[in-house]
């Protein structure tokens, strides 16, 4: 249930409304927007049946939220959420007017390749560096990532380039370690419904990039976000990365329609991973254009200085040159969609 307050509502009135709801055994969530303030009620709504909410001072309207996700629902927030990533020296934002592009290697394979990739990402207009340290591989015999060593390298390259870092966390035991080194924690598609991991991420003060599971519905993705949010972390960015269908010509099928559906259902930013969706470097640029046209707030793209020799996902990684060419192409698509492409150079000039 959400309570929309009158435009001239006072702090004391808001405090009173929240006290009445909390005294009934529910929790409240406040969202102050430019136009209006919303008080979201979380818990068993039957507890509110006896309360004369509509007649409390400052209340304009009371609306039930019928969706199973509450904190993630569009209704719960007065405005769209902008998720800021990084600290003072390295910042990027998902969900503003600008489209934010995160890029980097699937796996961190060493210092040299990571530095080269990061510089190329920065030069081409990427504003977040991605890089896998702990890798969820289908085969136990495949390269599993450099782990702690990769985290240290990511932190070094973050310091030298000013790019905030996003990396995947697979294990609840690694959450604190990764939060120390990275600016944003990624939940991979395979872990989207790892509820103990999601709950743990609710307790850290780092934004989370939550990828849609390969056979998860939009509703399940939003419920996964709700897990993180209900445990205390509202900084969640959703990522469509392709779902499994009967089609074999592509690795997965990018669910373009999920982008506007998610934007309708939630206030959280929505980005797209065209690399995993297509599984083919040649598809990355066209899928990125489609994502921007459909309203995505950003992209996460795999870039490798030498895809042929990549230890993982070489087929879908762009060379730095191909990434730069794609970024130039996307600029026009962003403008056509009423957006812009955020870049570190533009940020520095601002």
């Amino acid at each position, binding site marked *: 249930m959400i309570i929309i307050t009158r435009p001239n509502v006072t702090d004391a009135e808001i405090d009173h409304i929240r*006290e009445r709801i909390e005294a009934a055994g529910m929790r409240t969530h406040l969202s102050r927007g430019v136009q209006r303030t919303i008080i979201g009620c979380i818990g068993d709504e039957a507890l509110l049946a006896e309360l004369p909410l509509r007649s409390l001072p400052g209340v304009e309207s009371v609306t039930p939220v019928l969706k199973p996700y509450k904190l993630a629902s569009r209704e719960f927030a007065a405005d769209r959420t902008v998720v800021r990533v990084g600290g003072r020296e390295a910042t990027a934002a998902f969900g503003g007017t600008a489209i934010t592009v995160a890029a980097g290697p699937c796996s961190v394979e060493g210092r040299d390749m990571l530095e080269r990739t990061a510089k190329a990402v920065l030069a081409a207009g990427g504003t977040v560096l991605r890089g896998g340290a702990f890798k969820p591989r289908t085969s136990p015999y495949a390269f599993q990532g450099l782990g702690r060593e990769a985290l240290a390298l990511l932190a070094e390259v973050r310091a030298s380039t000013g790019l905030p870092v996003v990396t995947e966390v697979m294990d609840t035991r690694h959450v604190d370690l990764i939060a120390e080194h990275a600016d944003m924690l990624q939940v991979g598609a395979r872990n989207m419904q790892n509820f103990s991991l999601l709950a743990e991420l609710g307790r850290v003060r780092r934004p989370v990039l939550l990828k849609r599971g390969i056979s998860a519905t939009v509703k399940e993705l939003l419920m996964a976000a709700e897990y993180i949010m209900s445990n*205390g972390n509202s900084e969640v960015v959703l990522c469509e990365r392709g779902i499994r269908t009967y089609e074999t010509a592509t690795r997965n099928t990018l669910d373009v329609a999920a982008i506007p559906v998610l934007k309708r259902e939630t206030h959280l930013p929505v980005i797209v991973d065209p690399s995993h969706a297509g599984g083919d470097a040649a598809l990355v640029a066209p899928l990125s254009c489609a994502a921007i046209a459909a309203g995505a707030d950003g992209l996460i793209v795999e870039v490798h200085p030498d895809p042929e020799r990549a230890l993982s996902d070489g087929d879908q990684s762009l060379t730095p040159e191909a990434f730069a060419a794609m970024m130039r192409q996307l600029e026009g698509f962003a403008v056509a969609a009423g957006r812009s492409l955020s870049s570190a150079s533009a940020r520095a000039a601002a």
Partner: protein
Amino acid sequence: MSADGTSDAAAELARCREEIERIDDEIVRLLARRVALGKRTAALKRAAGLPILDPTREAAVIRRITAAARDAGIAPEPIREVFWQIVGMSRHAQEESAP
């Protein structure tokens, strides 16, 4: 900045951190006192036949602290979150205290 300026800043940073640690210690001592008082109220509630969980009282505590945070010039929402944790911690201690 001169070398002296840098070392002055480093010394000031160290002083600030020491002060923060003293405050943290004080917060922990106060929380221990708060939990102890909670256990005392638990005994009184049991003697009076009242339930341990009292949502009306918890909501009043949170409302009071929201206004206090606002008066102190700090953002009330994070303070509310912190106090829900504290209220929860106190409630658990009450529930677990021997009758």
